[in-house]
């Protein structure tokens, strides 16, 4: 078999790597080992419109099947990476075969972190794949009492989608407010209000003490003593990198550590997306996992690094979400900040929050002001240039 670029994964980082290789004129073999049986597809809609619109999943695939044929990108669907022999430069696959590579991109993503207390029940979902989203959509019928554990991105977006489907969500979150660890108490409170004013019950600083039911979760008792009846449970308490298959190789098991361009310590091996812990020069440490935009750029940058091309500046960490009709956009690193200031009323759905550290802008959050994103981006870029001349 020809050895070229092997991409372990079929998500966004994997897709952008393949696209960038071909666009940059690379003519060697490109093979994507997609663990799932589908053409590479986009995940963000799974926690949004796919949950309340059966037609939305038709728009999920990044490219039509022809695209891969025309560009000679070989797709191995439903096949997983099982083991890495970095010395022989070979990847063992779940179909029993073994594939040689010149460059390998590890982009195997992450999996939802399970909660042991909920593991044995039939009416408990986690959300990562199209199948997960279909199963959840099937139960999100009008009147369904959905208990959501965790007010992270998944929990918040599912709550909003569940409302659209007519279901009644209740969120239980251990922290004092959604995203408080990232954005601070004031903005956390804003997110809390966003949900509550849309009819979602949000229980903060609470944890599940006991789960009641035999095959299905019928109710839970919270640490504070309250009992909540439910028809279905969604566990959204973060993800862990898919690295189990790398056991025995020289790579880190808590995420594949790489430099800013995605190079690991093993020659010829790169990583991008949720499985990767890229070095962030601004923070001075490796950061595990990434949001959509960053994952895509990491895949593209790894492709350029493989080809010896200049990958350009790294992407600023960013995310966006549409919650109950309000677009929320964030870029930068808010935890670095020592102060936050507001333009507009932070009690409204139309404001800018600017995070500063010793007077320098380190992050910006826009609520209902998408047109200001280019300005915010320029502000952060200028700031980064000053920090890293």
């Amino acid at each position, binding site marked *: 078999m020809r050895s070229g670029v092997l991409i372990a994964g079929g998500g966004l980082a994997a897709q952008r790597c393949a696209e*960038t290789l071909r*666009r940059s004129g690379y003519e060697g073999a490109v093979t994507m080992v997609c663990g799932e049986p589908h053409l590479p597809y*986009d995940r963000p809609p799974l926690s949004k419109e796919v949950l309340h619109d059966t037609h939305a999943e038709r728009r999920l695939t990044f490219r039509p099947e022809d695209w891969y044929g025309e560009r000679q990108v070989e797709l191995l669907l439903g096949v997983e990476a099982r083991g890495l022999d970095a010395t022989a430069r070979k990847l063992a696959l779940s179909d029993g075969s073994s594939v040689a590579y010149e460059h390998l991109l590890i982009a195997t993503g992450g999996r939802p972190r399970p909660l042991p207390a909920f593991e044995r029940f039939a009416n408990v979902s986690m959300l990562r794949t199209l199948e997960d989203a279909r199963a959840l959509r099937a139960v999100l019928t009008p009147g369904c009492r959905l208990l959501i554990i965790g007010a992270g991105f998944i929990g918040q977006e599912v709550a909003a989608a569940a409302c659209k489907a007519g279901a009644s969500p209740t969120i239980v979150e251990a922290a004092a407010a959604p995203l408080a660890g990232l954005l601070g108490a004031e903005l956390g409170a804003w997110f809390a209000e966003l949900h509550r004013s849309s009819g979602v019950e949000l229980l903060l600083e609470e944890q599940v003490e006991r789960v009641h039911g035999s095959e299905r979760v019928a109710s839970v008792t919270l640490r504070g003593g309250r009992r909540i009846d439910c028809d279905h449970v969604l566990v959204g308490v973060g993800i862990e990198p898919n690295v189990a298959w790398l056991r025995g190789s020289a790579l880190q098991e808590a995420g594949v550590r790489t430099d800013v361009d995605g190079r690991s310590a093993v020659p010829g091996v790169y990583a991008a997306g949720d499985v990767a812990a890229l070095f962030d020069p601004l923070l001075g440490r490796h950061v595990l996992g990434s949001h959509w*935009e960053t994952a895509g*750029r990491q895949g*593209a940058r790894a492709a350029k690094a493989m080809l010896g091309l200049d990958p350009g500046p790294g992407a600023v960490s960013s995310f966006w979400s549409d919650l109950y009709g309000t677009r929320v956009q964030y870029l930068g690193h808010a935890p670095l900040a020592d102060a936050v200031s507001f333009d507009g009323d932070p009690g409204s759905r139309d404001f800018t929050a600017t995070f500063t550290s010793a007077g320098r802008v380190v992050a910006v959050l826009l609520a209902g002001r998408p047109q200001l994103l*280019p300005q915010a981006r320029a502000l952060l870029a200028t700031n980064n240039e000053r920090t890293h001349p």
Partner: protein
Amino acid sequence: MTYVAEIDEDACAAHGDCEAIAPEIFRLDDVAIVVGEGPDELMLEAARACPSVAIRLTDRDSGEQIYP
């Protein structure tokens, strides 16, 4: 049809919302590209939907920037 669309290639993250909304006007390559023309309202809808705000609209006649 007086609006002209331009893509900020550094900002575009290839989300693909513009193509989904107005496939006659935008197509996703490595980044989004402008491939045609269409009604002003459709262009504005696509520009507003772009999570990266990478679509700039100007008025062909006046040169005025319409969005962002």
